[in-house]
């Protein structure tokens, strides 16, 4: 349609938000739920809810709003299907080697996939904090999304990195040659070189 009408504008806005955030939301939901199909469902619900929002109200807060709604939907989904959500389970990372056979393990060659697997095994609080950070959200935003204080959000991120640091994979990465440039997320997704 056209951008002249209010609905035209909203449509443009929703679609551009969708383009920008659909994949990050699916990633986030997938980290929470461990299930890609469920993640897509949750993200669909989230983006449909976005349609009801007015661009003027949400302007700057779109990202935190999206992740908050997505997270809530994920919790609902989990409660409907299981009795406990990951947050209510143990706080220790549950790293495990599923393949006792070294040959099978050596086949998993993709470094990023392996890092993701390690991240997926973090306790829920750490996992979601570090994921939200990677998606470009700041500590204050993360704190609001997960419903805690900013200090606590920082601690969660810190703990996540600490947990990861001591996994053998991380030790290996740190022992090897360092990446030439360090890329870290800038607020809402753009990279910044350090």
């Amino acid at each position, binding site marked *: 349609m056209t951008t002249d009408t209010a609905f035209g504008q909203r449509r443009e806005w929703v679609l551009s938000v969708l383009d920008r955030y659909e994949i990050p939301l699916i990633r986030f939901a997938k980290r929470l739920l461990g299930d890609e199909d469920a993640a897509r469902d949750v993200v*669909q619900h989230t983006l449909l809810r976005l349609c009801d929002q007015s661009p003027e109200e949400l302007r700057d807060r779109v990202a935190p709003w999206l992740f908050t709604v997505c997270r809530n939907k994920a919790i609902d989904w989990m409660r409907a299907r299981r009795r406990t959500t990951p947050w209510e389970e143990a706080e220790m990372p549950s790293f495990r080697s599923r393949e006792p056979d070294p040959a099978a393990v*050596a086949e998993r060659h993709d470094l990023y996939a*392996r890092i993701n697997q390690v991240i997926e095994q973090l306790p829920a609080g750490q996992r979601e904090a570090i994921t939200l950070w*990677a*998606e470009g959200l700041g500590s204050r935003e993360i704190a609001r999304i997960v419903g805690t204080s900013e200090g606590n959000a920082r*601690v969660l*991120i810190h703990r996540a990195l600490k947990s990861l640091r001591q996994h053998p994979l991380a030790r290996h990465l740190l022992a090897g040659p360092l990446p030439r440039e*360090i890329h*870290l997320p800038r607020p809402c997704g753009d990279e910044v070189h350090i």
Partner: protein
Amino acid sequence: MNTNHHPIDGDQQREARLTAYALGQLDEQERAAVEAELAASEKAREEVRTTRVLANYVYEATCRDQSLRPSPGLRLAVEERLRQLEVAAEGGPSASPPAKPLGRSHRRLWGLLALAACLLVAAVPSYMFLTGLGRFGDRRELARRELARRELASPLSEAQAAPEAAPEFATGEPEARRERAAGDASGRLSARDMASSEGRASELSAVLQPPGQPAGRAAAMASEPASALRPGLTAPRENSKYDSSSMPGLSPGGGYGARSSAGVGSYGSGSGAMPGYPGREGGGMSGMGGMGPGPGAMPAEGKPGLEMKEMKPKADGVFRPTVRSDRGRSSPASEAAAPQAGPAWRDASQQQTRFQAGVPTGQIVVPTPSKTPMLMPGPGGYKLGGPAADKKFDGETEELLGGVAPPGTEEYQQIAENPFRSATDHPLSTFSIDVDTASYANVRRFLRQGTLPPRDAVRIEEMLNYFPYRDPPPKAGEPFSVSLEAAQCPWNNEHRLVRIGLAGRQIERGQRGPSNLVFLLDVSGSMDEPDKLPLVKEAMKMLVRELTEDDRVAIVTYAETTGVRLESTNAGNKAKILDSIDSLTAGGRTNGGAGIQLAYEEALKHFRRDGTNRVILATDGDLNVGITQDDELVRLIRDKKESGVLLTVLGVGTGNLKDSKLEKLADKGNGSYAYLDSVREARRVLVEQIAGSLVTIAKDVKIQVEFNPAEVASYRLIGYENRRLAARDFDDDRKDAGEIGAGHHVTALYEIVSARAAPTRAAEEQPLRYQRPAKSELTDDARSGQLLTLQLRYKRPNEDQSNLLEFALRDAGKRFGEASADFQFAAAVASFGMILRGSPYRGQATLKGVEEIAASALRDDPGGHRAEFLDLVRGAEQLRGHE
């Protein structure tokens, strides 16, 4: 949500702030403060550097994952919703179309698209439903084809150029192209990586081969892994036995769950250091290979260079404890430390230890096992002989091993054996004691059936602890005695072996105290085999006959229906109980969780504060519940343990034994796990050892050994892999550990490389890239000539604070033949276990050697169990002979 609200102490805040700085999240003010801190501390700067690197990887892995594609129906669904809202608000799409050239066809296209969208939105979920967890690509393909079909069917096909249609097709085509490209790229990458990681895998497994390899070749290989591992995006050393598989304690099948994660961690930190330092490891190996005296030069008067100091205390080599009134830590300070969800692989020894000051660097030394031949007992004492003369040695034992798979659907927790650790870098070895005996009985079952046991069915500590030893009884008032002995190691005669022996207080029949027992029996269909339910029934009846009217017995069965079969009955009324047992039959599916609940309730109903309260669970382990329910079961047991009701687990059956699960249940429930392979074993566990099975004399028993680097270059704890604890857990009374029952014996063995025999390591070390190892200083105590200090903590059954015992050991340089029968027999059992496991640490051990040592140690055979062991060894030899 609860886990987000732990109290945070100042230290964590500070650490978190440092991390936030590293991630660029701080405002100016905070940044200035942190930068001041960084200026003062190299360690903090290093921390920031590594945090950034790690964060970079996390960010890239999270956000650069190319495999996620947009959901196909999503955009359409959103557009549809927007259209609905617009219709609702404005009363019709035609209300405000501007004057645009494509106005009308616009509308029609929009209408058709909306129709298509509706159909698609309906189609997509139903397709998803139909395919369940179907592949995403299929759906997208279907959606695209569907849409294309509808478009072609409409007369407006030329409107494909229109912007509304464009998004769909625009995303369609380039997507496919992009995906293919990415696929190819990743395909190529994977092939390359696979090749290199496979290459590394074979290199590494070659480096870690058992003894047959010449040291020179090991050194040559060491340089290869060094270069192969360095380059960036390649798979880590998960093909190493000590790496990823050093995490087993953390998986559901692990020994202590959250507890052992701490334990595994402290070793994980050590082995985790390996990936970066293969060169050093190789260097260490070649170094050790060069040092031993040649074959035939058996040390005559004890080890060269070892001081022949007299052992201070008595000639029987038993050290009496000095009981320090040092209570364990469970203060608020440690409360604050608890919420640290930080994982447990921390390097344990940051603390001041008795023998050295300074920070260990976490390096590993793997000595090459010497190739001098095994000591063999002979008429005039010990002589050289055996495998060095026997050309077939390596081939034989290799054939024997061969990685037998568990039969049927049996399950075993994978064990990664403890490696050698440097006494300088890892002076503390901490573990929980264990009185389970299931592994020995299970191994016996396999051998008697004529097959070798699966590697992970062999837990050496459980084999050692199956046997009673002649350790002296404890002094009056003490729950156990501790004995220490050091002598030559028979499978690697350059090394020393240290045996730690605990002997629990015996309890006379009449002194047992009242027992409140609940038999929790699995009567599901799978138990309907002669070596299962009938055996369990016989075992229960044997136990009941030993009870008195001070005791009570209840029976709870679980299968499809779960219920109290027999209410708690005074054991004076034997007939009633025996009849109830007799009437049990198997059938139906299993529902373990409900049964456990009920059993504990029954036990609590008649709880005896002055006696033993126990649930005795007998099952083949097939609780037949799903994974999430497994975790619930474990949690249930852990909660129940708090009530003071203990758990004994009896495993039965072949072909379906869930060994890993049963061991875990026993651990969580403050209990022990035994395997009943025969009526005779049932008699041993439930009649002969009834006091041990029913009465706990000490709980949460932990051992911490500090090795003196002046005397010990490196050490290896044999077995107890699932029992390891982090060093700091030793003093933490909230950390659970094993229980010791009346009359139980516990044995632990350390293999030790003496510092005087090993060359200094400095020569072989590869320089590190990011740090210079801190030189640690030895304290005065290190010059005492002591080999190690053993600390032991235990709690009396009704107390919550631990008591501490401490002993020191000096090595008198005994040869193997001079050691006690207990020592020799334990060494034989450990050798046997290592051979069955195919352990790379088995040195020169052979079945023949084990047989000869066990035979000579038979001069003292409490209970006749050692003779049976000898039979098993001979049986294993025959099995090997048939291959």
